[in-house]
């Protein structure tokens, strides 16, 4: 059963962390986030139980940090750097452009994508920079955002959903 599978995976993660050590809590949550891609309500309860704290406390802690997300993200990710330098080079316009595209979806299958705004990527002179599913584009102009996302997400949406 999928459920058993989930809880076994969860236990595998949890047993690497010492229940009576509060300092292991955040690394444990990070491990869950890395493994699952997000922290589900069930994971939150399991983590809480492992460390002997209420799930709501785990949730409170998780919402404080940017690292954690609480819902699975769709496969396609468009990331735009809005670090100081990229912003000053006009990343704001790329973001509003990407937000517009996001509303209709991009590419042939009109696939929905997750838009992530990130901080300095250490490549400021090539800014503004963006990447689609890990492929980087540099010195992007606002009018190029559409063609970049359309082209990268152009394939028909496959069966995996």
């Amino acid at each position, binding site marked *: 059963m999928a459920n058993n599978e989930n809880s076994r995976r969860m236990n595998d993660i949890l047993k690497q962390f010492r229940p009576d*050590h*509060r*300092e*292991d*809590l*955040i*690394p444990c*949550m*990070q491990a869950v986030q890395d493994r699952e891609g997000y922290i589900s309500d069930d994971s939150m309860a399991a983590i809480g139980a492992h460390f002997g704290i209420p799930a709501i406390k785990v949730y*409170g*802690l998780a919402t*404080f*940090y*940017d*690292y*954690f997300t609480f819902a699975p993200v769709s496969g396609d990710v468009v990331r735009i750097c*809005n*670090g*100081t*330098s990229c*912003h*000053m*080079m*006009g990343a*704001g*316009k790329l973001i*509003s452009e990407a937000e517009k595209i996001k509303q209709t979806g991009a590419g042939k299958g009109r696939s929905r994508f997750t838009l992530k705004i*990130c*901080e*300095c*990527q*250490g*490549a*400021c*002179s*090539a*800014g503004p*920079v963006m*990447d689609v599913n890990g492929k*980087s584009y*540099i010195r992007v102009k606002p009018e190029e955002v559409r063609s970049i996302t359309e082209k990268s997400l152009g394939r028909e949406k496959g069966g995996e959903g």
Partner: protein
Amino acid sequence: MSLQAMNRETARRIIALPPSKITREEQDLLLLLRRDRCTIPVILVSESRPARVSGSNATYSAIADYISENNLSVELGRCSGKGFQQNEPFVDVQLPGKSRVTFGPVSPEIVPLILDGMINKAIPMEYALWQYRNPMHEPWDGVPFFDEIPYFSGQVRKLTRNFGLSDPASVAEYIARDGYKAFVKAISNYTAADITELVEQSGLRGRGGAGYPTAQKWQVARNTLSDQKYLICNADESDPGAFTDKALLEREPHKVIEGVAIAAYAIGASMVFIYVNASDSYSTDCIEHALSEAAALGLTGENIFDSGFNLKVQLVRSAGAYICGEETALINNLQGKRAIPRQKPPYPSEKGLFGKPTVVNNVETLFNLPDILNYGPQWYRNTGTPDSPGTKILSLTGKLKYQGLVEVPFGITLNDLVTKIGGGIRNGKQFKALQIGGPAGRCIGHEGLQLKLDYKTFAEAGIFLGSGGVVVLDEENCMVDVARYFLRFISRESCGKCIPCREGSRRMLDILNAISHRPEQGASHEPLERFKGVMTLESLAEVIKDTSLCGLGKTAPDTVLSTLRLFREEYEEHIFERKCRAGVCTDLQTYYIDMEACTGCTACAKKCPVNAIIGTPRQPFFIIEQKCTGCGICMETCKFSAVKTR
């Protein structure tokens, strides 16, 4: 070159013994590892975040393919980023006996050009950027030397001297460049008090922002009695526009570890946490790899080099919040709590992690230590000012001709930084301001360019150096937008403990949003309200500065206040004329139709969601400004580029 070239015993001998006691074969090996000598041609592709973004992996594969297709006997490897971002990806080529040449940008297409030339010993000059000086090598004609390039000649590259030369993933190459000698010398021949004394003499000050004397901080921790002491290496660097600390982890991770180990010994800490920014997996991977190499050589662990000193180093990834960089917040994070700062004193050096004396040092601070021990405090003081000795690593970005990671002596004027190193503003535009220190910093205008970059001058001028991010702005930047950018960051990152910071920064942001957006319909006192808003900004800012607990709130309003003081007329334009002269605040733009270009095709009028466009078909159309909401759809729709903004 990897450690296979150097076995564990050799590595340990080279670290521990003076050069005179090293065998002939070992000397030869070091020459090879330092690339002072090569027997076959060597090709090194730069490996850094800017290189990756610019496609260095594709270049690397193209070179590998070329080598195997042509059956060449060549060593292909990696070297770290050079701190010059313009011409990435770089490729270094070194032929036996000749000096090492850097090419860039090298795209896969021009790989054959360069390699063909290299085989025939005729370098395609147009791609050669510079060559490195080395008395053992014969230089190429007509290629400038590295230190003749203005971007580099304006700098003093001491800490970063190996950047772009060695492979960060190779501990052997680090050892060949005197790596770990300082640490092993320290634990074998010096007491912890000696080391602290040396650092005291060097005058080293913390690079985390405040410039607190490092030895003094250590002294407090040393003097506090405790069974356990900790050192935390702060490499969080969550300033959204700085990359210096990440670059150190990525380009010479072993020097970070050596610095950490020296400091731990001086403080008497047997446990160190290296706290890194989780959003950047690349630098994390680099330091993680280096830690495993160091452990394998017995440079960490129990009884290091038979000195009796034990050291455990643990890598911790921050969970992503700007405030995690503040030391007491960081400690709360390490203890599994929310990263909320607390009142100081007691300072962490007296009562820190788990209540034990804990020294929190910035990673760049620690990066200075191997040099101070190897070359002595006097050598260290030769650079910089008496009050701020040494160099500072900055991320120099924005509208400059040349950008990247730069290392400058303290005491350099900001003008030299911008014009000599940065090469001035690109595309012939005018300098407007520079923003220094990230969210904790401020904007400096033309007059401020005379300022010298050192802790004393900056403290007198009330400027916080912060993490060392310098962003240069030109006439195409809107200062209201700059202020808004940092306020948005602060209001999102305020931890929420102090109400003035949490609520005040939001109200300030509301005010800035109001003046950079179109007014709502029918609000008659709008300009007056907005003007009052700006007056409120100043008093709000003062309250936040006076009443916040930590450095975040205390410095948060500085960027706003500085832009308001320096560029008041731009604020007034936004308020009274609803105009953004730089065209950045798009919400303030008004759209109009160019009568000449309009063909009267009606496409825009049909698309306009608020029916603000009127006209007769085949005649020029017209936009009613009062109705227009500025959505920009007409501009996108027009096939004749007749819709314009002003």
